[in-house]
Every structure is written in structure tokens, then in C-alpha cells.
């Protein structure tokens, strides 16, 4: 599904974040990317989203070389990225409107998709995510959790096969965060999504990542991958294994710092 072939990335200011970095992700896998601030987690996600280009090497996603944002990749950010002037429904429909704007050109929108009946595609997601009653509200009127659910609805309405999340629940309170983490797990299973979540929270990485990529002080040269096969299984949060994984991840992270 995803292949990093000797990817290097350097910021204009000269800071090198990745150097000859190789990494593979299979379809349907659930990854968490963990690491301290400034380790390149978000850069990696932006590279994957096609919002930044490697300075050297190639990134392949879904059998094609990535050179621009890919229509079937969904991105969810900590800051939600909602348009403040659009209602919940308008925000959730935005991606479909963008697709309708370009038509099925294979570049901005999938070549095999004609956008019709936007309500029919968006409303079930609003219903599912408990947003139907808020459909005519503006982001400023919503709580953090409701805003993030709107961003999730917007992404899922586009029917993605790869979901990228950048610290999506970091600014939410604990109960909201846990309910959205559970929602992510359910959606992943249901939709057979490949998910990659960037987080600085060890607990979140242990909960959501069946594989955890630990990044250290840049430049990152080779991936340090941690297997966590039980992540996402029913009430994993309350199991002993979960606590063990958390403490092993913590030790690994301390080792990289």
C-alpha cells in the first residue's frame, strides 16, 4: 500500500529530517507514529499526504508514485481544518464539492467517480457521528469533539482507503478522546481502512497502533518498528498487555531520545 524508497527530506532552513528512509505499510494495517516533538512525525504524515515532496527518493501509495495529494487519502488534523464560515453540513460536504468542482479528472478527484446526491452521501455520516442535529451550526458553536467528528465525517464521506491522522485527539478532554479513539477503531474494522495516526501520547500509540513506528532525533535513517498485534481488540485499554506495551514503548522512546 505504502512504500518509502530511500526517502530524504530536508527543510529549506537546512534541517534534515529523513535520510535514505525505507518503510513499508501493507493495506489494512493500523500504524501509530510515535516520537518526541521535532522528530519528524508530522513531516512524515505530510509527505504521505502529498502535501510535501521528498527532497530525494520516492514515495509510492496504492501502486502509484505520490506527487500530489491523492484523492483516496483522507487527512485529519489536530486543529480540525474546518471552514469557520461553513455549517457542519457544508463542511462535511466540502470534499465532495471540491470533487464536483473539478469533475472526475483523476488528479483532484478519482477518475471513476461522478459526484451526485451529496446529501445522500453526507447525511448518513452525520447521523452516524451524532451530528445531524448540529448540521446547520457553525464550527464556532461546536465543542472540540463535535468539530473533530465533523472533520472525520468530511473525510469519510470521500470514501478513503487510507486515513492519516495528525494528533487528532490531542486537544480533547479524556472522555471525548476515548470515545473518538473507540470510534476510530470501529471505523477501521468496518471500512478496512489503512490508518496511520501520529501521536506524542504513548498510551494512544499503544491503543491504536498494531504497529508502532518510533522516530527519534532527526535525521531518521531507518524505521524502528514495534509490533503490537492485540491493539484494537475489545477492551484492550483495560488489559495487562496494554500496560506492558505502554511501558515497553516508553523504554524504547527513552532510548531514542
Amino acid at each position, binding site marked *: 500500500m505504502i512504500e518509502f524508497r530511500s526517502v530524504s527530506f530536508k527543510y529549506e532552513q537546512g534541517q534534515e529530517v529523513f535520510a535514505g528512509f525505507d518503510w513499508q505499510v501493507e493495506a489494512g494495517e493500523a500504524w501509530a507514529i510515535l516520537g518526541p516533538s521535532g522528530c519528524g512525525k508530522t513531516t512524515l504524515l505530510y509527505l504521505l499526504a502529498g502535501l510535501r515532496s521528498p527532497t530525494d527518493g520516492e514515495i509510492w501509495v496504492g501502486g502509484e508514485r505520490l506527487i500530489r*495529494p491523492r484523492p483516496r487519502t483522507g487527512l485529519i*488534523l489536530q486543529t*480540525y481544518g474546518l471552514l469557520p464560515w461553513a455549517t457542519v453540513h457544508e463542511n462535511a460536504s466540502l470534499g465532495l464539492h471540491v470533487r464536483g468542482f473539478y469533475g472526475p479528472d483523476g488528479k483532484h478527484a478519482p477518475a471513476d467517480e461522478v459526484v451526485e446526491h451529496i446529501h445522500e452521501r453526507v447525511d448518513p455520516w452525520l447521523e452516524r457521528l451524532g451530528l445531524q442535529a448540529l448540521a446547520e451550526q457553525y464550527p464556532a458553536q461546536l465543542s472540540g469533539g463535535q468539530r473533530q467528528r465533523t472533520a472525520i465525517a468530511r473525510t469519510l464521506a470521500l470514501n478513503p482507503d487510507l486515513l492519516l491522522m495528525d494528533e487528532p485527539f490531542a486537544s480533547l478532554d479524556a472522555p471525548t478522546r476515548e470515545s473518538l479513539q473507540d470510534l476510530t477503531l470501529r471505523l477501521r474494522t468496518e471500512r478496512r481502512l489503512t490508518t496511520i495516526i501520529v501521536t506524542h501520547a504513548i498510551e494512544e500509540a499503544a491503543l491504536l497502533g498494531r504497529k508502532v513506528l518510533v522516530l527519534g532525533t532527526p535525521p531518521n535513517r531507518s524505521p524502528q518498528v514495534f509490533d503490537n498485534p492485540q491493539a484494537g481488540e475489545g477492551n484492550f485499554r483495560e488489559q495487562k498487555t496494554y500496560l506492558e506495551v505502554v511501558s515497553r514503548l516508553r523504554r524504547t522512546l527513552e532510548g531514542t531520545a
Partner: protein
Amino acid sequence: MRRGQILFAAVAIGVVWQLLAWIVRAPILPGPLTVLQSFALEIGGELGGHFLASLWRVVASMALSIALAVPAGLVLGQSARLNRLLSPVIYLLYPVPKVVLVPVVLLLLGIGDLPKIVIIFLILFFQILVLVRDQAAGLRPELIQSVRSLGAGRRALFRFVYLPASLPAILTALRQSVGTAVAVLYVAELFATRLGLGYYIFLQGSTLFNYPKMYAGVLAMSLLGLGIYFTIDGLERRITPWQFVS
């Protein structure tokens, strides 16, 4: 602000005006009722024609400045490089009081509506340009990135992000500059025209010494400014309702 409050303020101004008129007791300051009477008589005739001429000039300059300043502001707001290049020029030109250019513009463009429209355009253009540019440049990069991740290229970003984001800036710019625009219109209408409220006020006040008519013209000019101001206010609530939610 409620309608009642505005009405109360209007009555209070009228009362103070009447008191001043009683104290001054001179033809140069007739009372509000005399002026209102004159206004009611004139607005359906001569004054109405002058009012429409001025209204047309302001509305035309507004339309022209929106049509040119908004795209320019959006382009500058999106391109840091172009903005770096042009912002010193804007920085120098923006604070120049455009009213001093009235004689120059009149000389260059002659008589008729065009020079008046151009003068007001110059004021509104810079105001809208600067506000729209700053609004576009101030959009959070994460917002742009997340919309780009939905497949939006430059055109869709323009349509779905930059354009709607600039609406409040356009309306704010218009509202801030409507007072200046009407004031400058008055000055511009003193020259090379026989049509417009500026001409009417000057003619009645300084040539014919018909003070009630002169004040009727002043009232018409105030109403012109107020009318535009209230229209912008109403438009703002209608087309940018998200700014008024709590």
C-alpha cells in the same frame, strides 16, 4: 443596536439642533422642522435628481473597487513573494490622502462622472486591497493544507477558501471607508459639474443663500452615507451569518 435606540438618538440630535437654532437665531441655522419641510418638498424634485447622481457615483465606485481590489488582494495574500515585492508600494500609497488628487484627476479625466468615480475608487481600492490581502495571508496554514488534502488545487482553494474568507474583509473595508468616500464625493462634486449633492449644497449655501435648501442637501448627503452604511450592515448579517453566532 436596536431600531428604537437609533430612533431615540435621531430625536435627541433633532432636539439639540432645535435648541441651538433657538439660541443662534440666525438664517444660517434654521431649525430641523424647517429643514425637514424643505427636504420633503425638494426630494421629489431637484434635490432627488442630485441625490441619485451622487448615489450612482458612490455605488459605481464601490462596484469598481470591489471588482479590482478583491482579486488583487487575494493574489497578494496568497503569494508571499509578490506581496514582498509590492507591499512597499502599497505602504507608501495607502496613507496618501486621496482627496488631494481631486484637481489632478479632474484635469486628467475632465468633466462628467468618471473623475468623481475614480477619486472614490482610489480611496476604497486601497482600503479593500489591504484588508483582503491581510485576511487571505492570515488564513491558518493548517486550514489550507486540510482543504488541499481534500483534493483542492489553486482554483478550488480560491473558490472554497480565499473568496469566502475575504467577504468580511470587503464589507469591513466598505463600512470603514463609506464616510470618507461621501466626504470626498462632496469635494469632487464642487468642481466641473452641475449635478450631485456637493454641487447642490454649495449652490444653495454660497450662491443662492437658501439655507433651508442647503441643509436639505446636507441631510440628503447624510442619508446617502447612512443608507449605504446600513445596507452594508444588513448585507453582513445576511451573507456572513457565521460572524454573529455565539
